[in-house]
């Protein structure tokens, strides 16, 4: 395929992905808006006002970056895992397999689709949060870079999950038993400075902690961890997952007999 043709193929996949999640917006865009508004009202306003300050900021202002990241992570992952798995399930993945689209374009298309939803939801949640607190951008470049890379990473994660999944149960195991706990324990609701030494050390092994903190640094200018380390770590994970995804695609794992 010529470079032009590859670009057309890529944009075809992205357009199709965006069309899919906007068509089913009550399942994809509405739920995070509702859930996050509830978090803002309950944790931020009602409970937060009693907590006072966290790391020198209002509790509300402290949790908003974490909650935005939480919805970005969940939505990016969910988009790719459910879209790609249902393609496998309905066998419409064969439309791509018989076509000359190279594997890396397929991967790029799905990841871009996942990022479109993840970042779209992130934007919706950000706008909603403005009704509860004033966000100032302390470091715009760090903010955008962190959220984009994180969204990319979890889109890739969703892709791997979908490649390995053989039944619908398999696509909810990771979000429920891995992503949700890691996010809740990833410093969304508290600063790990509050934790006893042992649990603080354990928390440092949680990759999501680094993403939440890097993003919070971009907005509030505070972080429990080194931002440069965080970003390099995300990039490293991305590289590893890209290699894994391409190898699985090349072998046709779970999609070719």
């Amino acid at each position, binding site marked *: 395929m010529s470079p032009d043709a590859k670009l057309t193929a890529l944009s075809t996949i992205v357009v199709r992905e965006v069309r899919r999640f906007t068509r089913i917006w009550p399942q994809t865009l509405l739920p995070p808006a509702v859930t996050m508004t509830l978090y803002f009202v309950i944790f931020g306003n009602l409970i937060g006002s009693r907590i006072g300050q966290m790391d020198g900021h209002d509790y509300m202002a402290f949790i908003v970056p974490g909650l935005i990241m939480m919805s970005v992570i969940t939505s990016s992952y969910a988009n790719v895992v459910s879209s790609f798995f*249902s*393609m496998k399930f*309905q066998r419409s993945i064969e*439309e791509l397999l*018989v076509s000359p689209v190279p594997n890396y374009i397929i991967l790029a298309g799905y990841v871009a689709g996942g990022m479109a939803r993840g970042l779209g939801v992130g934007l919706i949640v950000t706008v909603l949060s403005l009704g509860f607190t004033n966000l100032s951008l302390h470091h715009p470049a760090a903010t955008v870079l962190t959220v984009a890379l994180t969204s990319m990473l979890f889109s890739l994660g969703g892709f791997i999950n979908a490649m390995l999944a053989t039944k619908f149960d398999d696509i909810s195991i990771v979000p429920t038993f891995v992503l949700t706990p890691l996010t809740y324990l990833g410093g969304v609701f508290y600063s790990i400075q509050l934790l006893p030494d042992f649990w603080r050390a354990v928390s440092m092994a949680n990759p999501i902690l680094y993403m939440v903190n890097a993003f919070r640094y971009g907005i509030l200018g505070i972080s429990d961890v080194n931002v440069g380390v965080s970003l390099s770590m995300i990039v490293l994970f991305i590289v590893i997952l890209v290699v894994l995804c391409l190898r699985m695609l090349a072998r046709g794992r779970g999609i070719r007999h």
Partner: protein
Amino acid sequence: MTDALKIENLRKTYDSGFEALKGIDLTVREGDFFALLGPNGAGKSTTLGIVCSLVNKTSGKVSVFGHDIDRDLSGAKMNLGVVPQEMNFNQFEKVIDIVVTQAGYYGIPAKRARVSAEYYLKELGLWDKRNEPARMLSGGMKRRLMIARALVHEPKLLILDEPTAGVDIELRRSMWTFLQEMNRRGTTIILTTHYLEEAEALCRNIAIIDHGSILQNTSTRDLLKQLSVETFLLDLSEPVSEAPELPDFDTRLVNEGQLEIDVRQGQNLNAAFSQLDAKGLRVVSMRTKANRLEELFLRMVQENSRKGDKA
């Protein structure tokens, strides 16, 4: 002339250990209308699946218009359009989106893709349904949607795996006309079917596959010549109680008004009629017992499985 499809010593053993293809060779010339026939489980879909890279081969060589699928897969795919045996589109997507998206996968920009999609959806009588989600189509419409999707990038080789299964007679005829027209305009077509009259009506060349091996690969005409005996059903004007003994023909009574008669190669029907006439029997109407190809096919496949039993 290049070969549209060339398959050499193709083998496939599935992960289950089942050997579905035992080294087949097949050549389809450019411009041909070719039928791949065989009973259920013979290996037809497996063969076609390997050609369009939905199934990984175990060994052997496949090339499409000279593009070897191991060395130039994307070149091979560009020339190929596939209508699979099972439905494989997203049920929730709109008909037009399915076809336009497929064109995009071949690198055709949206504007040109829409023109091509419109043309084929109209040709296949689906234009009125373009904005419906695919799940709202009837079974026959879904098949036609898959044909439109396979053609939208104008491939030189069109592969159809049982395109007329579950399609009503009128529609089947119109699909035949459509495919013949496509072939006349230069598209090479390979199809599988269980309706042998379809293969006889459409295809110039036929291969018969069974248990993963090719039994026959020849022109439809030569294949039919091998049919040494043809059986006709005769409706008689008066009922008879037993089959008449004719000098040159074997006959059997089906029921008192109907007779079966075997006509061997080299014999002619006029002789049969005059011998019947001599017995005072009048024939009102006549038809062949089975489709000619069907008879030949059944005989070959039965012979093959007898051989298989002995082996």
